[in-house]
């Protein structure tokens, strides 16, 4: 045995298996209360260094929003919709507000539409910065983490100025429009923050080759047909060569008037997903600049005053709205029977499919060391999966 090993001068899994046969097989629990995974667990079966099977174990963050919303009026639900996904609260505000608006048929003031898109794109930017931060942390690149979260705070300062809260906007994008108008001078502040974000993106590009490519190239490759079958959406699907974006294919708000591109890559690996997100940030900045140039004056909410809860009525009907979130496709099905509260709300988060079928598929056959890279390259958020 020793002689054989000397000849090859390399210990491989096969060698170990020869020495201790059958003892390389074990269970490994990734999560749920672990800084590397978020509030979510994966039960892994590992052979040596290789993952032989993976089974997602969600539910750690289940709060039952769909049921809670059946007992509240839309204005209160708007506040609740922040919590669906902490990392992109404003985007979920928009999903909820759109569903209610389509049911009530209220004509949203043009200024409110622009503010909604502005805030949704800012939220997308900060969400991608969080992703960059945790992705760096998962790859052992702490500088990137600290930098991304530092620059994200500049965007949070803007949220604080406009919505009155840093992380939770408390239903800033509410049914009928938005809750507050932009304060004086906020345009200049947003422009300054965009410059700072561009500075961060330049740094991201500089670091790109050192850390990211070596840990992510060829890791967690998803083929196009698998991606569609497993229900992947958003950046994950675009990294597999499918040119699709809800903002273009199924435009909502004012996205059909704006000029932006859909970044697509063919490789389908973790590296492609990283690059797609970098490109998406550029597109978001492009959108925000266009919005700031064109934003009209006018009302911000229709009706301007909040209706007292006892007088709220949602007309009977059912709608299904789709939005492009930072992580993928976010949808809401809303059914009303004419009461003040919706009769049934179904929220469909992108991570419900990214974290269960897609993650299980990608982890199977990967190496232990690649788990964080695969896990975070999907940019997952347990909150919107468990709801």
């Amino acid at each position, binding site marked *: 045995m020793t002689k054989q090993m000397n000849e090859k001068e390399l210990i491989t899994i096969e060698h170990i298996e020869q020495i201790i046969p059958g003892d390389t097989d074990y269970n490994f629990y990734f999560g749920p209360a672990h800084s590397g995974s978020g509030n979510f667990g994966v039960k892994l079966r590992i052979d040596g260094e290789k993952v032989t099977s993976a089974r997602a174990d*969600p*539910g750690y963050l*289940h709060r*039952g929003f*769909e*049921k809670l919303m059946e007992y509240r009026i839309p204005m209160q639900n708007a506040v609740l919709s922040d919590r669906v996904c902490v990392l992109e609260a404003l985007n979920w505000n928009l999903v909820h507000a759109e569903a209610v608006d389509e049911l009530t048929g209220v004509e949203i003031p043009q200024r409110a539409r622009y503010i909604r898109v502005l805030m949704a794109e800012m939220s997308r930017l900060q969400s991608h910065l969080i992703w960059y931060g945790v992705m760096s942390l998962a790859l052992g690149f702490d500088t990137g983490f600290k930098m991304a979260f530092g620059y994200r705070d500049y965007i949070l300062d803007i949220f604080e100025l406009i919505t009155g809260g840093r992380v939770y906007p408390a239903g800033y994008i509410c049914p009928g429009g938005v809750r507050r108008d932009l304060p004086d001078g906020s345009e200049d502040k947003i422009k300054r923050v965009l410059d700072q974000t561009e500075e961060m993106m330049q740094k991201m590009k500089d670091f790109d080759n050192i850390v990211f490519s070596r840990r992510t190239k060829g890791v967690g490759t998803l083929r196009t047909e698998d991606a*569609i*079958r*497993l*229900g992947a*959406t958003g950046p994950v699907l675009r990294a597999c060569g*499918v040119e*699709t974006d809800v903002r273009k*294919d*199924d435009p909502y708000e004012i996205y059909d008037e704006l000029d932006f591109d859909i970044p697509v890559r063919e490789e389908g690996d973790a590296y492609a997903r990283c690059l797609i997100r970098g490109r998406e940030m550029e597109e978001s900045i492009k959108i925000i600049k266009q919005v700031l140039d064109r934003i009209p004056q006018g009302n911000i909410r229709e009706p301007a005053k909040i209706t007292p809860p006892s007088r709220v009525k949602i007309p009977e009907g*059912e*709608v*299904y709205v*789709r939005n492009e979130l930072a992580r993928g*496709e976010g*949808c809401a*099905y809303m*059914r009303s029977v004419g009461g003040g509260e919706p*009769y*049934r709300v*179904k929220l*469909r988060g992108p991570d*419900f*499919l990214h974290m*269960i*079928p897609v993650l299980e*598929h990608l982890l199977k056959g990967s190496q232990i060391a690649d788990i964080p890279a695969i896990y975070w390259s999907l940019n997952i958020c347990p909150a919107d999966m*468990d709801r």
Partner: protein
Amino acid sequence: MAESLHKESKVIEDISAKFKIAGKVQRERRVWVTIDKDELIALCNFAKGLGFEHLSAISVTDWPEEGTFELTYHLWSYSERILLTIKTKLDRANPAVGSVVPIWKENAQIHERELHELFGVEFEGNEDLTPLFLEDWDGPPPFRKDFDWKEYVRQQYYDQANERERAYYD
């Protein structure tokens, strides 16, 4: 208006030619059809053939007065850019329906698993319907309309001695 909804009407025409059901175009890119539960699987197969390869979501609406569950399948076509919603009704006393797992594979599997847990709908042919979110849950399926969660929580968790909880329970 009629001109611009050409794509949407075409989908309905294709479906009604084969299944003898009427559909409705709600607005641009939104098509709704209702079908009997026996023909659901055949229609889903047909829709997949039309290019609806992305199952966006499955949802259940509970109608206790009618005694039915309403299932909605939301399908998106990447090529046609249309969202097709298929609706079907189940008997609430015997909520069993054929699984769409053979059509949309893992994607459908996980949606059905969620709805089985939250509404108690049986998907015949789906092999893995183990609980997803709730651990050690022994109550009825919690998202049903007749599940009185206030009473359930009061019995399980109300701490009468805690002054602060009174506003929630009384």
